[in-house]
């Protein structure tokens, strides 16, 4: 990344503490899950519960390091972000996930395609959606029909390629 291209902003509260809290949370989860596993160490002396506990402990150490660094350096710098494009992409992925089986691969993936294009500034859905669906159909044709990859079919695929 070219740091000089991106506007930086100081956050004195520091994301370091939030990250530390997340790491500690993940660490605690691992330690707890490791502890409730009945001992099956056998001859090794190390059972299936010991490794999660160890990794959980290391995550706690990293969390403490983050706190220490956060205190010393007064937080992490990060570039200003635009939320709308991010939401467009996540929305596109969610739509694809939900609609994949009911509507089939091409329509669901065409929606993802159009949403991603929108995230990058091409908001003309009347153009991007048909292009996306057409592109996805071509992919379906090549990979499902010719190369035998199993892709979920909807009414559009059945209409064009038969069942």
């Amino acid at each position: 990344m070219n740091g000089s291209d991106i506007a930086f902003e100081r956050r004195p509260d520091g994301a370091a503490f939030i990250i530390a809290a997340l790491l500690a949370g993940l660490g605690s989860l691992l330690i707890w899950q490791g502890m409730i596993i009945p001992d099956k160490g056998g001859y090794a002396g190390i059972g299936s519960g010991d490794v999660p506990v160890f990794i959980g402990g290391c995550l706690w150490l990293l969390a403490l390091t983050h706190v220490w660094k956060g205190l010393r350096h007064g937080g992490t710098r990060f570039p200003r972000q635009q939320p709308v494009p991010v939401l467009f992409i996540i929305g596109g992925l969610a739509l694809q996930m939900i609609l994949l089986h009911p509507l089939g691969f091409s329509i669901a993936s065409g929606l993802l395609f159009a949403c991603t294009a929108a995230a990058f500034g091409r908001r003309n859905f009347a153009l991007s959606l048909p292009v996306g669906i057409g592109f996805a159909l071509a992919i379906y044709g090549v990979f499902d029909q010719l190369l035998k990859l199993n892709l979920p079919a909807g009414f559009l695929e059945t209409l064009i390629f038969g069942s």
Partner: protein
Amino acid sequence: MKHTLLSVSFAAALAMPAFAEDYVIIAPAAPGGGWDGTARAMQEVMQAEGISGSVQVQNVPGAGGTVGLAQFASSAAGDASQLIVGGYVMVGAILTNDSPVSLADVTPIARLTGEAVGIAVSASSPIQNITELVEMMKADPGAVSWAGGSAGGVDHITVGLLAKAAGVDPTSINYIAFSGGGEALAAILGNQVTVGISGVGEFLPQVEAGTLRMLAVSTEERWVGTDAPTLMESGYDVNVQNWRMVAAAPGLSDEQKAAVTADIDKLATSAGWKAMLETKGWADTYLSGPEFDAQLAEDIEATTAILTDIGLVQ
């Protein structure tokens, strides 16, 4: 570029002969193991005999096949084109793993083959016969490390039964689970472990090449291709046979189930399958329909008893 690619693919596709129903067979084990071998043998014969035009094998390894079974039960529901290979090992694994998915969650179609479990050491091992091995176990069970398949699988069960029959505490065996046949075999050949236990078929090519020595087989009768004694004739009351089966997805209609059963019947009675069994050294124990369902229920009950007995299931 796109045009050349497409036309080449089209040409290649046209060159393929047209066949019946396509199948995906899930082998719930890593490549190289017994179920993987069964799935690939089915693939080969089903394609060669024209039962199916395109058969794909997918490996979903782990934990005695329950990982693959769970994934299969959830993702293949209602899809008659998907099959899963399974077997005796899976029955045990479902119990030891306390698996939320059991064989009741899929549609068992038929039992295909059975195979003896073999006990073998590297050719350079000082152990010459099964009695010597058992004496070593009696002296110090922890010093005898066993390389075999998944924890709680047929290999593990056989070791437990052998220990029990020889008067060694079955919970004290030092059993090391490998998820694929290839890695376990390498560990035995490289003298990393004391002894290996696996399907006889996996050991035979090595025995033939003189790199492994088979000490015993687990079935009632001796096994074709090796002169190793059975555990019974060596004085240990152990009789285990590792059978393998094929199951279809849950939620099939009666017609779908009948169609799949018919395809598997066609497979099992084909000349290609008989030849395949011959080369692989598998015994034909084909059983389908209500007889198989009854046999399966019986096996599940018996396995539960054995596993509880040797301390693998509480």
